């Protein structure tokens, strides 16, 4: 029995994968499969954005809450850097995204709102103060924020 994309996508996915592997192309739900395959590309982009904003949020917390610095934040920063470098390595066409000012704005805004969800800080910078090369460098941890 055919389960539809709308009624249960988990069951639909298992069934469509089976039909694909069995070569039963006439039974496939082509349009939904095509949309989902297009989405594979989009989800790579989304993953890069999410990881980058998580990384930036932790760099901000590191800078603005020096008293709460610890191994847990350090681990998150390191893990996100590694994962981002892996993403870029596996999908080189992601690189231009990081040069796009709109992309940067969006990622920065996500980072700021993630930080503000956890703690009230009113002196966060309006724009990202770091270069991409710094952000992704394993040794880089921003100094405590001074009153500038």
């Amino acid at each position, binding site marked *: 029995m055919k389960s539809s994309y709308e009624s249960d996508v988990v069951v639909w996915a298992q069934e469509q994968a089976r039909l694909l592997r069995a070569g039963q192309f006439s039974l496939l739900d082509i349009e939904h499969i095509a949309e989902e395959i297009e989405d594979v*590309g989009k989800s790579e982009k989304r993953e890069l954005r999410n990881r980058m904003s998580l990384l930036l949020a932790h760099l901000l917390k590191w800078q603005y809450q020096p008293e709460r610095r610890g191994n847990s934040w350090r681990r998150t920063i390191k893990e996100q850097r590694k994962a981002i470098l892996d993403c870029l390595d596996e999908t080189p066409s992601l690189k231009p995204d990081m040069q796009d000012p709109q992309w940067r704005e969006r990622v920065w805004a996500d980072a700021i709102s993630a930080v503000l969800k956890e703690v009230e800080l009113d002196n966060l910078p309006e724009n990202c103060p770091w270069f991409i090369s710094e952000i992704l460098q394993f040794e880089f941890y921003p100094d405590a924020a001074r009153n500038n």
Partner: protein
Amino acid sequence: MGTMTYETDVINWSKEQARLLRNGQFDALDIEHIADEIEDVGKSEQRELENRMAVLLSHLLKWQHQPERRGSSCQRTIKEQRKAIARRIAKTPSLKSDLQDSDWWEGVWGDALIKAADETGIAFDQLPTACPWSEERVFSDDFFPDDCLEAT
């Protein structure tokens, strides 16, 4: 044969495969990777449920362990996650079977502990190693756990 392979650049691969599918050029498709990705559509739905559960449980933990920081923001997050989880399960009924799996709860609880510890600074060993609340309570709209000193 397509020029873009899945391994060299998945974004370009996905555009090309979608085009071939819509044109009915089944002979030229990269079937195995398409099938893997379609299976992953189901898995990502399951992952989304896991993520939301971890957020919900971590906020219940924060509620319980940091009574001094209880506020409308934490309460709102708990409500929103409960609603979102109920919506997802209604939309994809087969997700219910995940909730019957004890390994699933163990994984979700582990994620919740990491989140709660990361966001509050509470040490891991002060938090329970397994979820102390029944499924019914976790999803019940008016359940907010009392302080740890009181019985749960």
